[in-house]
C-alpha cells in the first residue's frame, strides 16, 4: 500500500484514461451521485451478514465471505463522515479492486452504468468543500446533474495509515 499516494497521479490517470470516452458506475450516497470507473468494479452484491472486526475504525463494517475469499467492507457514509443509514432494499455492496486488494463498499444505491467523454470532466474546483472532498478527483457534468468522480484508491489508503499509527500510539 503506497503511503506516498497523492492526488496528482490519480488526477492524471483520470485525465489520461479519459481520452475518448470512459465508462462509469454511478451510485447514490446521501443525495449525492458519485462515479467509479467501471474497470475497478468487480461486482455488486446484496448486503449479507458481516462479521465485525475489533481494533478497526468505525467505517470498517467487518468481513464477509465472497466465494471463499474474505474481504473487508467499508461503509462509505462513515468513511465520508456522514451519519450511518439503516439498511434498505436499495443498499448494495460494491466489490471493487483497489491497489491489488479486493474490498467492498456499502453505498445507498447503485444507479447506472454510463459513458462520459473527456469534455464532460472538469477538475475539482479548489473551493469545493463537502462530502469526501479528499477523495475527489473531478466532476463530470451530465445533462442536468453533476457526478462526483472518486479516487477510490484514496479510500483505502490515506486516513487508514494515520489511524493505524494512532492506534499504535494509543497502545
Amino acid at each position: 500500500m503506497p503511503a506516498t499516494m497523492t492526488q496528482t497521479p490519480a488526477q492524471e490517470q483520470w485525465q489520461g484514461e479519459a481520452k475518448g470516452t470512459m465508462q462509469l458506475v454511478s451510485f447514490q450516497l446521501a443525495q449525492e451521485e458519485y462515479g467509479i470507473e467501471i474497470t475497478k468494479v468487480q461486482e455488486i452484491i446484496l448486503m449479507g451478514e458481516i462479521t465485525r472486526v475489533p481494533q478497526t475504525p468505525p467505517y470498517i463494517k467487518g468481513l464477509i465471505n465472497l466465494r471463499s475469499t474474505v474481504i473487508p467492507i467499508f461503509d462509505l457514509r462513515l468513511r465520508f463522515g456522514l451519519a450511518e443509514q439503516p439498511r434498505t432494499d436499495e443498499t448494495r455492496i460494491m466489490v471493487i479492486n483497489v491497489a491489488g486488494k479486493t474490498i467492498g463498499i456499502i453505498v445507498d444505491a447503485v444507479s447506472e452504468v454510463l459513458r462520459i467523454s473527456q469534455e464532460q470532466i472538469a477538475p475539482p474546483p479548489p473551493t469545493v468543500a463537502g462530502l469526501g472532498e479528499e477523495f475527489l478527483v473531478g466532476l463530470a457534468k451530465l445533462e442536468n446533474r453533476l457526478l462526483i468522480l472518486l479516487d477510490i484508491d484514496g479510500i483505502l489508503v490515506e486516513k487508514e495509515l494515520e489511524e493505524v499509527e494512532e492506534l499504535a500510539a494509543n497502545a
Partner: protein
Amino acid sequence: MTDEVGIQDDFLESMLGDFIDESEGLLQQLNENLLVLDDWAGALSPGDEVACDTDLINELFRAAHSLKGLSAMLRLDNINVLTHMMENVFDAARNGLLFIQSETVDLIFRAVDRLSAMIDRLKDPSLAEVKTECILQEIRQLLEANGAQKEASSQADAELAMKQELKDVVGSAEETVETVANCVEELQADAEHPTRQMPDVESTDAAAPSPTTHFQGIQDESDVPANYLAIFIDECDQSLDDLSDLLLTHQSDKSVENLMITCHRIKGSAASIGLARPAKLSHLMEDVLQELLQSDGRLTDEINDALLTCTDALRKYVETLKQGDPQSAGFENAYQALAKARIQHDEDPSAGPNELVKETPENELPASASPASQALTDEEIARVAEDAPEGAHGFVARMTFEANLPLVELKAGLLIERVNSIGQIFYCSPAETEFEAQDNFTSLTLGIATSISRKNLASKLDLAGVASVTMTSLPSQTSPADKQASTPAPTVSADVSKKLTSEENPQQAAPNPPQPSEKQPTETSRGDANTKSQRRGVSKPAETLRVDIERLDQLMNLAGQLVINKARFVQISDGLRHLTQVKNLAQSVEGALGLVDRMGSDLNSMTREAQASPLVDNISNLSRQLRDDLESVQKEVGKLSEVRGLVGDLSEAVHQLDRAADGIQKSVMDTRMVPIGPLFGRFKRVVRDLTRETEKEVTLQITGEKTELDKRMIDELGDPLIHMVRNSVDHGVELPEDRVAAGKPRSGVVKLDAFHRGNQIVIQITDDGKGLDPAKLRNKAIARGLVTEADAERMTPQQVFQLIWEPGFSTAEKVTEVSGRGMGMDIVRSKIEELNGTVELDSTPGEGTVFTIRLPLTMAILPTLLCRINGDVFAIPVESVLEIVRVRNSELSTVRNQRTATVRGRVVSVVALADMFTWNRPPQETNAESEANEITLVIIGVDDKEIGLLVHGLIGEEDIVIKSMSENYRNVDGIAGASILGDGRVSLILDVSSILDMSCRMRGGPSQGDEVAKVASNEECAGADDSALKLNATLSI
C-alpha cells in the same frame, strides 16, 4: 552484455525455469564440496603445494561445467564466463597446475556467491545487476600467477590458451564454427588432392561398423540416488517427447536448434547423475545436430530417421530405468545408425559451405621440427592396434608439437580431454602421467576409438601449438581371430584406391555391422543381467512430476474449501438425524388404528343390537373416514421411516466424504512437504563464513534433515534461521581462548535439529556457548525502558530471557557486522508467528542457549476450538488451548481488583475479550446463555504465560482454513486471521500470543500466571474495576 537479452523466445524462457531449478542444485553441490575443500585447505600450512583429492576437484569441475553448459545454452553470457573461469581453476587444480589454498577457496566462494546472485536475478529481474569483472580479474590473475610458477615465459601463452578456450565455450556454437571451418578446409583440400580422399573414405567405411566398442567400456554409475534418478526420468521423458515432436515436424530451420538444445539437456542431466550410456548417445546426437546447424541447418531424412531411432532407444532405456533395471540394448544400433547417417551427410559435398575459409589442410602444416618422429610406421600402428578394444573402430593419431612450445604438457592434457569428449583413448604415448616428466615432449601418439569422422577428429586435434597431425585408421576388427590375422591398417600414405565411394550408400558400405550388432545386444544384456542382480536391492525410483507451486496453492485452497463443506455436511446430516428421531410415531398410529377398528366393530354391534339410528350411522361414517385418514397417515409414517433409512445412508455417505476429504487434505499437504535438509545445508556455508569473520572455531552439527515441512514454510524460515544461527555463533560461542579457559573444547558446537512432536514440527538451534546472562539482560531491559526496575527484580531468569524478543533489544555490546545487520530478534519472532508458530529461548549461563521453534504441520489448515464470545464465533488454535474449565461464580476471587480463578491450585487471571478489544459496533446478538452461577474459561497459553479467557459457549473442535486478513485488508492486533465456517459465515481466529501481550499491557508490565495479582498498580485499579463490572454485566445477562 546483459543476461536477459538472450532470452527472447518462449522456448528458452521455459528452459530458464529448468535452468534455475537445476542451477540451485548445482550451486548447493558447489558450496558443499567447497566446504570440504576448504577444510582440506585449512589444514595446509601456507605455501604447501599438495595436490588435493582429485575426486573432489572433479566433482567441482563437473558442477561448474554443467552450469557453464546450461548457461551457454541459454546465452546467459555473464554466468557462462564466470562458470567457465571457475571451471578453469578446477581444471588447473586437477591437472596439478594450481595448488588449492585457502585463498583460492575463498575466491571461488566469492565467485559462487556472485553466481547465485546472478541466478537470483534471473528469478527476480528487479534485483541489482551483479558485477563480475573484479572476480573474473582475480581468477585470471590467480591462473596467470600459477601458470607463471610453472614456466616463467608462458604467461602470455597461458592467457592466450585460456582466451582460446574461453572462445570455445562462450557460445558453444563458436566451437562448431571451427569444426565446420575445418570441414570446409578439408573439403577444399580434398578437391585439390583427390588421392588424399581415400583414407577418409576408408575411415568412413570403418566408422559405421564398429559395433562392439561404443558402449562396452561405459558403465552407468550404479548407486544413483533414487531421487535424482526420479528427476532424471521425469525430465528425460519430457525431453524425449519434445524430441519426437520436433523430429516428426522438422520442417523449420529452428527445429534443428531446438533439437540440439533438447539433446543437450538429456546429455546434461544424464551425465550429471552418472548415467554415462545415455549421456554418450545423446552427446553424439547433439554433435550431429550441431554440425548440421552449422552447415545447412536442414535435416536429411537419414539423419532424421537415425535420430528417431536414437530417441526410441533412449525412451526404451528410460522405460527400463523406471523398472529399476536399465537396458541400453538399443543404444548400439541407434549409435551406428546415427554414425552412418552422419558420415553420409559429411561426405555429401553439398552439405557444407565451401567457400570463405583459409586453406590449411592438416597434412600441409608447416614442416615439423622432427619429421622423422612424425611419421607413423606400420609397426607402430600395429602396436597401437593391439591395444585397441576388440572390434574397435578408430584411428591412430600422432600430434607433433611446435618446437619449444611452452606448457606443452598442458596442451597434451587438453588434447586428451578433447579426444575423451568424442571417443575413447586406448593407447597413449607417452603416458598421461608422464607428461610433466618428459624432457623433450615433442609428440603425442594416441590410439582413439571413436565413431566420428576423420575430419572432425582432425579438427579436434588441431590446437594452436600443434605443428602437425598424422592420422591412420585402425584396421577394422570384428573378432579376436581377425585381429590376429589382420594385416596392419591402411595408412595415410597407403593407396587403397578405387574406393571413391563418397556417395556410396552406407548401408552397403558397411556390411559388417549387422552381425556384430546382433552379438552386441546379447553382451549388453548379459552385462545388464549382472547389474540387474546388483540392483535387486535398489528400490525402483519414484516417478516425479514438476508442478508449479501456484497450482499446489490453489489445490490446497480447494482442499480447504472441501474441508469447510464437509463440516457443513456433517452439520446437516446430524440435524436431519435428530429430526427423524420418530420411533414411536408408527406405533402410535398403529395403536390409533386399532382403536378405530374396535370403535368400528363396537358401532357395528350397536347397529345390530339397537335399531338403526341416524346418529349411529353418522358416527360409523366418521369412524370409517377416520380409519381411512389414519391409514394414509400410516403410509406417510412408513415413508418417514424410509426417510430415516435414507438419512442413515446420508450420514454414512457423509462419513465417507469426511474420510475422503481428510485424505485429500492430507495428500495435498504431503505434496507440499519437502525435507528441511537443503535449508539446513545452507548453514554450513553461513557458519564457515562466520567463523572466518569472528575468529571463532565452530562445528555445525545437523540432524533431522529428513524432517519434512511445507514448501512455503521452508521458504519463509530461511531468514529467521540465519539470524538465529548468526546469533548463536556471534553472541553464543566464545573465542577459542575463552573456551579453553572455561574448560570447554576449543571448538564450539552449533546444532541444528528438526523433528516432529505431536502435531507440530520442532526446530532447535543449540549452541554450547556462554549462554545468556540474566543480570545483563535485566539491566539492559531497564536501560531501554522495556521494564521497570521493580518488575525486573521480580522476573525469573526464564522470563528475562524472553525479553530478547522485544523490539529494540540487542544483547551484543557492540553491534558487529554479523549480527548487527538484518532483522532484530523481534522480527524473527514475528516471522515465526506469521507461520502460526512459536519461538522460545532457553539458556543456561556457561552452558549454552537453545532456540526452539514450533511450527504447525501446515500453514493453511489449523485445528481450532470454536467458541462463542458475546455472540461472535472465534476460533482459538488448539495448540494454545491448555484446558477448558467451568468455574462457579462463587469460586472466583478478586485479588487486587483482578478477577482470578483457582484452577487445580493455580491462580489464573480471568480475562474477558470485550475488555481488550475495542469494537466499533455492538454484537449482533446478545448472549443469552449465561448460567448465572457458572462461567466457562478456556485457558490459553504460550510459553509460560497463561490466562483464562471467558467464553459464552463452546461449539467444538474444527479444522479451519486460514484466510489472511492482510490479503485484502491489513493485520489486526489480537487477530491471527479469518476463516470461513461451515455455514459460510466469517469467523476470526484469535492470535493467542498477542492476546496474552494485550492482557499484560492492560494490566501494565509483563505478568505471568500467579504473579498477576502482585503486579497491578493503583492506576490500573480503575480499569480492573471496570472490567470486573463488565464481567458481571455479561454474566447477568
